[in-house]
């Protein structure tokens, strides 16, 4: 047992003692008397699981798992090499093709989950502009999602406007609310920004819930039209009849188009002059200001651009659910989108996509756990953050010195 491995066992032992110290009072102290059995049972299960994990880890470090370890690492380096050789454009088209074929081969549930993932990819990429690029900690991003959703909902229900017409309108409304929310925060830095944006998020949610005349309050808005399309109907000669894209397959392609648009737009923004100015603001706002970067307008622009994608995703969400209620726009949703951006890898488009996949697919994967679902999800978030602090796929440009690029 080398020194390193005994340290791991000691840590495991201490950890398990602490765990029992915390678990037992919650389960063991009852008015009838002190019980130990229920808490011991839970403790033993956790201890066994931890024991297995640590011993696996020990074996890995001691190289005993070489027969699995070596080929997997070899394969992984192989993939990495291929990935580097093959131009990125090829990879993107492969992924795109897979995305196109996906709905034809899967059941409703998988399509629904992937549609949700894609909505959150749009949200994540939007928030990524605010946090990943401009470095503004925004805890109320879901407000724009709500504004977009309610804009389309109201326009569709009251004025029967088509989805495609309302998309830009929702985006504009979201951008305007982005500026309204952004303006007061311009002079603030760091965590003061967080609480102000959090406050705005809550204000928007409360207004949605309480302004009965406009938003019908907690009852939400019903009967929103799905996106429609003029499709060459062969039934009565070559006429263009208007069909409602209600089926999941059609909705899938609408959101796929939206995601592709978002990725292209965010990509171009990343590498544009504005993108670099945002990164300058993120790295050191005062230095950026000294170099003539007009931080006020650019920060507002960051909020507005982020809000645009939030609004678009909101409009699609309303069209897809055909019902909108304030319960979908809580602070927890903002926290989820924030986690996706950071967990996936700040500032990197593939990272945010991976983050969205993880944080939407994971709770669905844990659906079998019923009551333990959210417990496992919270635990997974902590573990993912500890093992990948800079995210699954961190951005290459993120704060790297030139020599480290090598």
């Amino acid at each position: 047992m080398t020194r390193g491995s005994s340290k791991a066992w000691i840590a495991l032992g201490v950890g398990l003692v602490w765990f029992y110290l915390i678990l037992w009072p919650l389960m063991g102290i009852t008015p009838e008397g002190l019980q130990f059995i229920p808490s011991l049972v839970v403790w033993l299960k956790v201890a066994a699981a931890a024991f297995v994990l640590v011993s696996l880890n020990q074996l890995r470090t001691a190289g005993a798992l070489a027969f699995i370890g070596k080929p997997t690492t070899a394969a992984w380096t192989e993939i990495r090499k291929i990935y580097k050789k093959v131009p990125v454009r090829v990879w993107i088209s492969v992924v795109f093709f897979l995305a196109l074929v996906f709905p034809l081969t899967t059941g409703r549930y998988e399509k629904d989950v992937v549609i949700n993932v894609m909505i959150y990819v749009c949200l994540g990429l939007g928030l990524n502009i605010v946090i990943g690029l401009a470095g503004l900690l925004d805890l109320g991003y879901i407000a724009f999602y709500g504004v977009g959703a309610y804009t389309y909902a109201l326009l569709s229900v009251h004025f029967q406007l088509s989805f495609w017409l309302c998309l830009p309108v929702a985006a504009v409304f979201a951008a305007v609310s982005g500026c309204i929310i952004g303006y007061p925060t311009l002079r603030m830095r760091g965590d003061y920004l967080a609480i102000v944006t959090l406050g705005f998020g809550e204000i928007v949610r409360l207004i949605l819930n309480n302004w009965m005349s406009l938003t019908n309050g907690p009852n939400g808005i019903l009967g929103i039209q799905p996106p429609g399309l003029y499709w060459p109907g062969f039934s009565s000669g070559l006429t263009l009849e208007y069909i409602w894209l209600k089926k999941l397959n059609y909705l899938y392609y609408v959101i796929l188009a939206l995601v592709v648009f978002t990725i292209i737009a965010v990509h171009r923004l990343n590498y544009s002059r504005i993108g670099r100015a945002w990164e300058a603001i993120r790295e050191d706002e005062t230095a950026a200001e000294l170099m003539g970067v007009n931080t006020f307008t650019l920060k507002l622009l960051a909020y507005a651009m982020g809000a645009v994608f939030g609004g678009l995703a909101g409009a699609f969400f309303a069209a897809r659910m055909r019902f909108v209620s304030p319960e979908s726009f809580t602070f927890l949703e903002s926290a989820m989108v924030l986690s996706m951006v950071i967990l996936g890898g700040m500032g990197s488009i593939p990272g945010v996509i991976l983050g969205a996949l993880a944080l939407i697919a994971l709770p669905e994967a844990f659906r079998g756990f019923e009551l333990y679902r959210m417990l496992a999800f919270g635990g997974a978030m902590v573990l993912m953050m500890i093992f990948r602090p800079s995210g699954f796929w961190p951005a290459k440009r993120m704060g790297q010195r030139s020599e480290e690029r090598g």
Partner: protein
Amino acid sequence: MDYFLQQLINGLTLGGIYALIALGYTMVYGIIQLINFAHGEFFAAGGYMGVILLSYLAASGAGPYVCLAGALILTMGYCAVLAMAVEKVAYKPLRHSSRLSVLISALGMSIFLQNGLMLTQGVYDKAYPTQMTQGSFQVAGLYISYMQVIIVAVTGILLVALNALVFKTRIGKAMRASAQDKIMSGLVGIDSDRIISLTFAIGAGLAAAAGIMVGFYYGSVHYGMGFVPGIKAFAAAVLGGIGNVTGAMIGGALIGIIEVFAAGYLSSEYKDVFAFVILIAVLYFRPTGIMGENVDDTRV
């Protein structure tokens, strides 16, 4: 006039609860610049441990005051241990990575603890033995319940004790030094990891006290009770100037009073909106909060 005074008492009581939780936020933020989203869960865990210990002590025949004091101290101890464990597991490994990744780890821990409480304590609210502290007395037409007096009194005592600890004792000096410059405080022999652990313990202890008093005041505790007060207390800590202990007290009292007067005089459905609007207005004119001095962002 009675209506005004009655609402003021309600506001102070609510403010006292927010202040106690806000103290935990401010201390933890002061030392490692972390918005500890899991802090609301220590408040909830305190509420649960309070009723567990109270019913156990009452069942084993202890007198009311022994029960109350025993439960309070043991619960604060329990939450301190819980906070130290959370810090070791979720925050210490991320000590040297970006502040945002610790934030997400805190969010994950908040969800984990909340559901942990639900699974060990059941989904129903847990009732508090309110008959111990029920009843109220009348002063010139004003209804003041014993519990309101206890909350404001205990908050005052705990704040004075905390102020003495931070500004008068040796450990307090070490905490302030560690907050200002972790490397230098290490070079004079202060083990910053122990100080951080201690700060978490104290913050959680105060939140546990708030949890128990909320249990008595409202009559029951629920595993999700920590979330909304947590956000309000964080707003209070920022309003008072994040990192400043007295500021957290002022911020807490202010948010409590604003909320109650907004509900009492304007409209109770928009009371939270008013609380946040005033917070944003104050921060707009004083970007570092009421008591906050401009903490330089570039921490070593």
